[in-house]
């Protein structure tokens, strides 16, 4: 496979944005693999995320967050100009309960994209990939707006670090 320059730039930025910011940082997962349209992540067991105090199993909401993140990440990177993709819907099937004190592995992949919609599939498992705890399908909108492209978001962030250039805010947008 040819070297993908854009992915090489996007990968560390996205990894940083998801692992160190907001809810991603609070959950504490690690992104293991980030390719165009494919994301793998690992989530360690955490006691403060338990949903069932009787069995100690993590809450389903955690799995929603993990799969939503992984699917969203795959959808963002599949585009020729990577940009933020709003989620349209997400459907999750819990095939069996997660076991406490074990990490959860998540894999998500884009399986089809049309001109307006990106279709994504994700799976979460613990011991055996063939025997998953949850499976999900999520659809994302392709929004044709420059302001949400990774490129303009990165430029905006850079400009904040360079106060002497604040007067020419529209530089990046025209190119």
């Amino acid at each position: 496979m040819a070297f993908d320059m854009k992915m090489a730039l996007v990968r560390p930025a996205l990894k940083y944005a998801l692992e160190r910011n907001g809810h991603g940082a609070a959950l504490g997962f690690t992104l293991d693999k980030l390719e165009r349209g494919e994301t793998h992540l690992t989530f360690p067991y955490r006691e403060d995320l338990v949903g069932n105090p009787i069995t100690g199993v993590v809450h389903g909401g955690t799995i929603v967050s993990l799969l939503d993140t992984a699917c969203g990440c795959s959808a963002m990177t599949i585009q020729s100009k990577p940009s933020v993709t709003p989620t349209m819907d997400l459907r999750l099937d819990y095939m069996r309960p997660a076991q406490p004190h074990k990490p959860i592995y998540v894999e998500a992949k884009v399986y089809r994209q049309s001109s307006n919609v990106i279709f994504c599939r994700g799976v979460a498992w613990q011991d055996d990939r063939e025997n998953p705890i949850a499976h999900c399908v999520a659809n994302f909108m392709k929004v044709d707006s420059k302001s949400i492209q990774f490129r303009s978001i990165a430029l905006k962030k850079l400009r904040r670090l360079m106060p002497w250039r604040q007067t020419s805010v529209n530089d990046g947008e025209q190119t």
Partner: protein
Amino acid sequence: MDKHNRDELLLDWQERVGAARQECHPQSLLDMIPYSAFIGAQAKVDDQRLLYWLDKRASNIGNPSLPAIHGGVIGGFLELAAAIEIIYSLNVTDMPKVVDFSLDYLRPGRFKTIYASCKVMRQGKKLVNVSATAWQDDEQTPIASARCHFLI
């Protein structure tokens, strides 16, 4: 976990569920679930129904550049609300088990309080269907709507 310990926890759980129903205090159910403290979910009885809300907090942000609430948090919050609705309003003894969960995102979740309410659509012997809606400014303009099945 050994069986004896599980039975003890279950008894304790049932006792607290009974107390929460008697005192009309659904918040005490949420207090028993660590995940609800993690996202900051709260509940109260409001006008004959249960109202859930999620105050804004930095650890729930999904997209820092807008900022918008993480879609997973909205999903987790609605799933939690649906489970509490079942525990509080139906006669169940154990934790309901979620089977599937389907969520439609209607509007972006802005960085402010999210409210939610649920409705039990059907209760069977084994399965319960619950629909949940989340909104921010106005109940008539929901930001997300969910539908889930639980085994009881």
